[in-house]
């Protein structure tokens, strides 16, 4: 069974708005995201490429200062914008919230200790970074939805990407529990209080509860989008090598378990036959022979999902021109 090409896939799903790229580290996720961005931008669609990596590479890829500058217009191409997501600001907000909570707790329990050291420790909670990444992604999804026709998220290495998406389910469960315990805490306060009316009023305005509910609502919306196969597509990137193929297979299984739609597989770094034949070194010969084997493996195991092939280039892909070439090859190139 042959899979639809990327173009066919896009034409068959005209309302797709969000793309995600994922795969083992180093297979070309960022380049694939940029190529998809190029595809839509040249069709006149307002397009945003957003990097969710802990280590961003859009700045080096486009050769343009993007880091720390929010959404930047990409020079040299109409309709294209890019952003390297800075989670530091988000973490700062978390820190402030936590500071507020701890301070008010200590004040309330009348504990005469300096909250600073508590805050310092609590703010290093490893959950912060992951939550912040996911949070920022949902922010972009919900806030920029109106502003752009297409948004492409370049996700961090496999584990992180699974997390980001899987998290929507897990995070929800976690948030649910937080809300429950907060509710319980507040109702206990009302129950035990002498001045019920006053407390009740206070409880209704509880800033933390409001915050949790807002988060919850945001999660619900994001989840609905992520699970909508007409709106969202997850593109997996692999190269003809055993490890990246295995990772994509594992990845697809996990993503499907979260009801997230798979939009296709890109096979990157394929040595074209002509290139291999022009070179008689055992290097090229063996690599090409090995590639043949792995291409078979890809066809057997992922064949019904492969929607684009991208050749191996002799030099690193850099700049809008480099990406334009990838975009063109992504639609035309076929391994022979």
């Amino acid at each position: 069974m042959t899979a639809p090409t990327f173009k066919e896939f896009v034409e068959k799903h005209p309302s797709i708005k969000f793309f995600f790229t994922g795969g083992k580290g180093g297979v070309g996720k960022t380049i694939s995201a940029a190529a998809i961005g190029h595809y839509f931008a040249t069709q006149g669609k307002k397009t945003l490429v957003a990097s969710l990596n802990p280590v961003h590479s859009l700045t080096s890829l486009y050769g343009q200062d993007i880091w720390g500058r929010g959404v930047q217009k990409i020079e040299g191409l109409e309709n294209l914008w890019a952003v390297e997501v800075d989670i530091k600001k988000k973490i700062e907000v978390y820190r402030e919230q936590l500071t507020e909570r701890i301070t008010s707790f200590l004040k309330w329990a009348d504990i005469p200790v300096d909250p600073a050291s508590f805050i310092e420790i609590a703010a290093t909670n490893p959950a912060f970074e992951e939550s912040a990444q996911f949070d920022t992604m949902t922010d972009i999804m919900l806030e920029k939805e109106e502003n752009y026709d297409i948004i492409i998220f370049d996700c961090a290495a496999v584990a992180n990407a699974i997390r980001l998406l899987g998290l929507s389910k897990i995070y929800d469960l976690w948030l649910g529990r937080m809300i429950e315990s907060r509710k319980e805490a507040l109702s206990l306060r009302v129950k035990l209080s002498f001045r019920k009316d006053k407390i009740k009023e206070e409880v209704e305005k509880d800033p933390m509860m409001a915050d949790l509910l807002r988060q919850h609502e945001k999660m619900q919306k994001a989840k609905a989008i992520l699970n909508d196969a007409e709106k969202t597509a997850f593109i997996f990137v692999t190269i003809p090598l055993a490890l990246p193929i295995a990772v994509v297979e594992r990845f697809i299984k996990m993503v499907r378990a979260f009801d997230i739609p798979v939009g296709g597989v890109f096979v990157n770094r394929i040595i074209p036959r002509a290139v291999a034949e022009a070179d008689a070194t055992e290097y090229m010969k063996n690599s090409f022979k090995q590639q043949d084997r792995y291409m078979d493996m890809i066809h057997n195991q992922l064949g019904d999902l492969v929607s684009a092939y991208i050749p191996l280039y002799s030099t690193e892909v850099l700049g809008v021109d480099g990406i334009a070439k990838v975009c063109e090859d992504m639609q035309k190139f076929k391994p022979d």
Partner: protein
Amino acid sequence: MGKKKDKDAPDKKRGGAKEAVKDFFYGMAMQGMTRYALKTRMYLEHLFMLITLGDMLGIPILPPYYSLKLLPYAVPNIKTWKRSLFKERDFTDALF
């Protein structure tokens, strides 16, 4: 009562928690009153529970893996802790 204690409590400048706690206890010891000791005991209990199981209140402090490790020891205190925590201040003061 609550107000009087506020006066004893040190300011929240630098010094950190250690100094704060020390000063507080110093002031308390000078008074030499069991009631204060009892109350302090309660604060500390709150503090202890906050550190270990803060996320039950939506104030996650310790990574949850370690919170879970400590959970068995806290089981008998959880209910009382939550109750005492959410009483209004006047109420606790009235107890003593």
